[in-house]
Every structure is written in C-alpha cells, then in structure tokens.
C-alpha cells in the first residue's frame, strides 16, 4: 500500500444559472494572494480576468500571475481534476464550478473520494433577488430548491438589490428550505474558506460587508469523539466557520466546519484552541459561547509540548 499523499481541499460552488457563481469565482481567482487556487469551470467565455493578471493563456488552461490556475471541464470533472492535480508544486485549494443543473452533492463526491482530494465544503450561490420566483419555475423550481438543500453554505448574491424588509422575508424563506448557514457572497473569500490559521484573530479576513461575531477558546478538550460530535451538533446552524484543535485522550484532532459540514481528523499540526464565526444579527454570542464552553470545561492543564 502507498503512503497517504497530501490531499488538496476541494470546494464545490453550485447554484443555478445566473446565481452569480462566475463572478464569485472571478473574484476569488483574482483576489487570492497567499493561496494558490485551482479552479475548474464549465466555460472560459464567462471567466473575465484582467489581462494584466494573466501569465499564460492556453486552450483549456489560464495561468494567473498570482499562481492560480483556471481550467475548463471538457470531457469530465474527473479528467479536469486529474490535470489540475498534476500541477507542481501542489495547489493549495481546488474549486469546482458545478454546472447550473448539477446537484452539488453529486459533484461533492469528487472531493470525498477522488484520488488526491478531500472535501472542504459545498457552497451554493443564490441570487437573492430572483430565487423565490425561480423556486416556482415550471422546469427548474424543484432543482433550485434541491441545490439549496444540498449546500453547506449559502452565498447570497445581489443582496444589495433588496430592501431590508425583503431581506428579512428572504432569510425566513431560506430558513424553511435549508439547514445551512447563509452569508453575503461578497464576504466569501479564500482565507475565509480555508484559513483561520490564526485562531485568535479575524483581522486579516475581508469581512467588509457584514458585521460578524466571533468566539474563541484557547484550549479545547473532549472526552471522546462522540462527545465532540454531540457538541458540534449543538452549535447553531448560523455558524459560518469553525476551525481549531481539540484534545481527546492526549491526541490532537483538527476540527473544520464550513457551514453545516464538519470534519474531525487526527492531526500532527501544531496549534491549540478553537474559533467560530457567524453573522452578528443571526444569533447571539451567549448561545455559541455556551456550547463551546463545554469543550473548555475539563480543567486539565494545557499540554506543554505538542508532538
């Protein structure tokens, strides 16, 4: 058997035509500075990158001067993924643009088991100004609702077109149709999806558009993995991101949560503590802190050294 190779985190961006997937991807591609991003898109025609940022343009690949690469999906997602995984040094993160009619959960399977990949999250872009009409469409209404149901994180586009009262109605409506956290697509960034390395601070995150709250604990412990999962399950669904380290029986685990998707994996990375982030107006800190405090309640001394 081969030794486990490092796996590249994969984020799926789904949503129906016109939901704003492409502009979201355009922005992630060009904004990325520290992370080298690989992006699989259905059609270059839509991708609109400033010529000054383009290092090399091929038939099916565009390389950016910031180290990011954009590839078209021609035959299949699998073969495009294989191409992009060949790039050395390895990319930091892969984004797959699901086709407008795809079920994002099916595309997510590429993250779950394709050689070399791991699934980070399923983000579904939703056009705040049209989704409620679209959900009644003769042909695609049920598809749009299904896409929303399959999201870990809903990224709302065109929120600026809505009056406050409409926004409120929309959030009520979304709550009826999904169990995932919702954020303004303008606040979605690569550091946000991937980062949070510095668990005590969100200063470096471009969270300009929303008012976000965070909660942080310096050391986290759980009695067992089951115990940990039960605590994670208690967190309000509005939590957008959670990242950090939890000690269980002297072993260290990396916790990642993007929207409603959580993963817990043994790790030998250095780090301590946990941080959570959520939109300020969605739930109060008290509620989140109470849950996270359960991970802090065991009064073992913090480990002095980390293997």
């Amino acid at each position, binding site marked *: 058997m081969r030794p486990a190779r490092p796996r590249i985190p994969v984020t799926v961006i789904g949503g129906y035509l016109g939901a704003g997937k492409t502009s979201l991807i355009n922005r992630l591609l060009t904004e990325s500075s520290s992370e080298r991003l690989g992006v699989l898109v259905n059609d270059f025609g839509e991708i609109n990158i400033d010529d000054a940022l383009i290092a090399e343009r091929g038939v099916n690949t565009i390389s950016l001067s910031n180290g990011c690469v954009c590839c078209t999906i021609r035959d299949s997602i699998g073969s495009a993924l294989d191409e992009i995984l060949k790039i050395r040094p390895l990319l930091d993160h892969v984004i797959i643009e699901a086709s407008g009619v795809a079920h994002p959960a099916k595309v997510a399977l590429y993250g779950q088991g*394709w050689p070399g990949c791991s699934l980070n999250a399923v983000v579904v872009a939703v056009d705040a100004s049209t989704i409620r009409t679209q959900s009644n469409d003769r042909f695609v209404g049920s598809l749009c609702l299904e896409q929303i149901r399959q999201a870990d994180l809903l990224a709302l586009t065109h929120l600026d077109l809505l009056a406050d009262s409409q926004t409120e109605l929309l959030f009520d409506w979304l709550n009826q149709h999904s169990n995932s956290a919702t954020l303004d697509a303008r606040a979605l960034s690569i550091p946000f999806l991937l980062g949070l390395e510095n668990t005590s601070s969100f200063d470096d995150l471009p969270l300009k558009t929303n008012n976000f709250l965070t909660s942080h604990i310096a050391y986290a412990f759980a009695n067992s993995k089951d115990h940990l999962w039960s605590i994670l399950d208690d967190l309000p669904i509005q939590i957008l991101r959670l990242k950090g380290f939890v000690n269980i029986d002297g072993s260290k685990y990396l916790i990642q949560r993007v929207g409603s998707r959580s993963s817990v994996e043994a790790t030998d990375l250095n780090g301590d503590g946990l941080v959570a982030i959520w939109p300020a107006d969605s739930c109060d800190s008290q509620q989140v802190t109470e849950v996270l405090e359960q991970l802090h309640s065991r009064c073992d001394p913090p480990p002095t050294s980390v293997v």
Partner: protein
Amino acid sequence: MSELVVYTARQIRTMEPSMPVAEAIAVRDGQIVGVGNLESLKPWLEQERHTIDDRFSGDVLMPGFIDPHLHPSMAARLLTMEFATAVEWDLPWAEIGAVSTRTDFLDALNKFAADGPDDEPLFIYGHHPRWHGDVDRELLNSINRQRPIVVWHRGYHSIIVNDACYQWMGLDMDSARRHPQIDLERGAFFENGLFVANRHFVPHSLEPSRFRLGLERARDVIHAGGHTTICDAAFPMYDLELEWAALEETIGGSEVPFRTEFMPYAVNTEGMAPGDDDQQRVDLVQQIQSHRERNGHRLTFGNHVKMLADGGFFAELMRLNPPGYLDGHDGEWITPPEQFEATARVLWNAGFQIHVHCTGDEGVELALATLEKLQWERPRFDHRFTFEHFGLSDAQQVRRIGRQGGVVSGQVYYLYELSDVFGRTSIGHERASQMTRLGTVEREGIPFALHSDFTMAPAKPLHNAWIATNRINESGELVAPNERVSLDAAMRAITIDAAFILNKEAEIGSLRWGKKADFTVLNEDPWDVGIEGLRDISIKGTVFEGTPYLL
C-alpha cells in the same frame, strides 16, 4: 454501365403502399431499376444485358433495416468484454447462451479466467444479482488471484473487482477508502466511484487495437441485425479525431455492408446562453456544419444535430411531471432549460433538423414547449424536430407533438425491461405501464421510428418491432395494450419511417425504382407470422447497394 442483376424471392415486401408485394427486383450499380415480377420487368430485361439471381428464391426480401439511433463507439467498449448475461446475446463471433443461474455464472467466470494470460485484465459483462446471486472481491480472488478481473453489472452502473485489479489499477487505496461510493472490502465501485475506476479502464479500452476490435465487433452485430443504414446518434463520444480515425478504418471501408449517418452534438458544454452574441451563434452553426467536410461514401453528416434534455432512463434520472418518483428523488436536466431554448433557437433558425434526447414526461415537455415557442417565432414546415427515446409522455403531449409537426424515435426496450420493475419501485404502475406511448403516436398520425440505442438494448429491429406490437414485458405481462402499434406501422418504423426521420426517405427505406438496392433477407414474411412471431424470424443476411452480404 454494368449489367442488370435481377433478384427473385419467395416474397418481396416493398413498403410502398402502391405496390406492397413483388417477386423480382432489378438492380444496377447499387440502384434499383425496377420492382415487380419477371413478366412486368420485361421491358427492362429485353433491352438490357442481365442475369437472374435466384439465391433468395426461398426467402423474403424487405427494404434494408434502419436504426436511427445507436452508438457504435459506446458499443465498441462493451463488445471487447466477455459476456455472461441472463438474456441471450447471439454475438456473431461467439456462441453465448443465457447464463441464468449462479452455478452457470461461476462456471463462466472460471472458464474466462483460465482462458487468458494473467497479465491480461479480464472484463466480464452481465452480472445481475437476481439471477447470479452476490459476487464480491473474495469470490473473484478465489477464482483467480493473479489476473485482474472486473465484473460489470448488467445495468452498467456498478462493478466488482478482485485484488489483482487493485494492483493493476494502481488504486490510491487511501482515497478510495474515503469514497462514499467505493466499497474496498467488497471490491465494489458504483456511480461516482465508477468514474474513479473508469479513469484506469477507459484508456485501456480506447487503446487503438482494442478499440478497433470493439468497433469491428459492433460492425458485425449491426450487420447481424439486418441493418443497412444506422445513425450514430452522438458524435463525438470520446476524442474526436482518434474516434473518427478508428470509425473510418472499421465502418468506413468499401467492404462494410451498411452506411452510417452521424448526428453531432450541438455543443459539449452547456450550450448557448440566452445573452450570447451573434458571433457565438455563427460559431455554433459553423462548428456543426464543419463536420460535413468529413463526408465519404459510407460515413456522412447531413442536417442533423443532437440536443439533450433530461437524464438517463435506466439510471432513473429522467425528469418527471408531478407527482415525481415514489422515493421522492428528483430527475436531472442535462442542459439547463434556458440554455436548451437558446441553443435550440439558434439551430432552428439555421434550419437544422433537431433531435432531442428526452426521456421523462417533463423532458418531453421541455422539448415540446420549446418547439411550440420556436414555431410561434419563426414557423417552419417539415422540420422533423425529433423526440428521441420518448420514455414517458402523456396523451395530450402526443397530440401537441402532432400539431407542431414533431416526429418520434421511440425506445421500446424500456417497456420490455423496465415497465415491471419501475412500476413497482420507481414511478408507479400507471405511468410505467404506458412507457413509450406509440399507439397514441400512431393514432395521431405522427411518423415514428424504433431504435435500439445499442448498447442500451440489443440492435435487433425485429425484436423492437415485436415489443412495439405486443407490449409484453420481460415478466410476460401485457402492458397498456391500447398503446400497441399495428404491424404495418412497426415495420415502417424500422424501414421507411426510420428513413423519414433521417431525412433519407428519397433514397432508402422502401423498394422502388431509383432507390438504393438495400435489402434485408428474412426466412419468414412478417405478415405471415404475425406480431407474435416477429422476434423469431431469422435474418439470413443483407444486400447493400446491390452486393449480397450473407450471414
């Protein structure tokens, strides 16, 4: 000018209503000079040098059969595998009986595994738990530990492999273990997990000599079905140039007993978007038309173009009008409806004959609503907008198809294989029993063809005609008898009406002066044996453009 050859036969069924039966047919240079009997052909025979060929004097001649929708390149991949299926596949290169018990299946596996060298991966097609019981990795290991073995499910949607296969694939076990649709313990790969396996298998099966062997076998199967014209209904399937080179070499040569019309895909991505500009429209049209530069004698591109509405029928991904599936899952769109319409509009306005793969009644609805809209915007006569497969529909839709001038190319094998099981487990008995509603199509006077979609169903036009006229499914149940079609309509659907759907009815599909001398040679007359006997008629060979190719 070559001399005339006059074929005489026990019976000739011309499919020409003005003279439905004949006894002799005079041919020159691949073309029919005249049809009738030796007496009525005299004016020709007195004038021209001729020979009388009576080799078919005990047989029945029909116009060469036409399958307007199958996939040679897809068949090529399947046909290099070994077959062990519960239904009989009489493959021209091998006697393969039905393998319908566990013992027979294991015997077949053992025999195949012992038959080749250990470094040659073994692919076996046709496992079905209902007949063969469960098969897993350990069982395959016990058959052969050295030779990679891959057992394909009858429905193509899952495989079982042994340890040697893991080795051969160089499978990344760590990733595979995490995959929700790979079960390493059982050796099972399904759905998306199958894509992981195909990553290793596709290059193997498309390796040029193997792919060509597969295409040669597809050629022999097509000939054995009695076809003289087929349509490759999705081109390209794999790499365009590699595929074309292999096709030219295997089914493009002057010794091949049939011609192939190609139906290129409109686009291989999502197609036109509603806001696309004129240049993109021009590009789309040119891209499709540019294939015509490839036209030769056997292989041609005409005015056809293929579009895709909803998902596959066998995979239960067709879109359903409400109420949906019993289990509440949703079918899938292949093309987003807005892009479907935008693309169809460009193709319609450019004058193409559009063929839409539509399987569920909502898929049919999308195609139909689009057709209605395009007719309103820019009416066209005789456009032959074709509803391909036509798995589910309702009677009101059929009437609308007729009023808009649409035509149907129906897949009747659905109702043979799936009406029973889908009725119980997928969509309920009522809708399932009315699959491929061709009786209504006939009553509405809509031209229709029958196709095999090979490899989805065997490439046997007479078997399809048997299903369409009898509507008896695999379980022996008579389903929606009012949707049976007449014998005449079924025979037209594999000859002259199939030619109509390929826009070739002036050249092929019936026997009269001036048409191509394409015949299918049968041992019995379909009108003598009646609908019950259609599937038992044997094909003795074909005549393609005047040259006999006997089986």
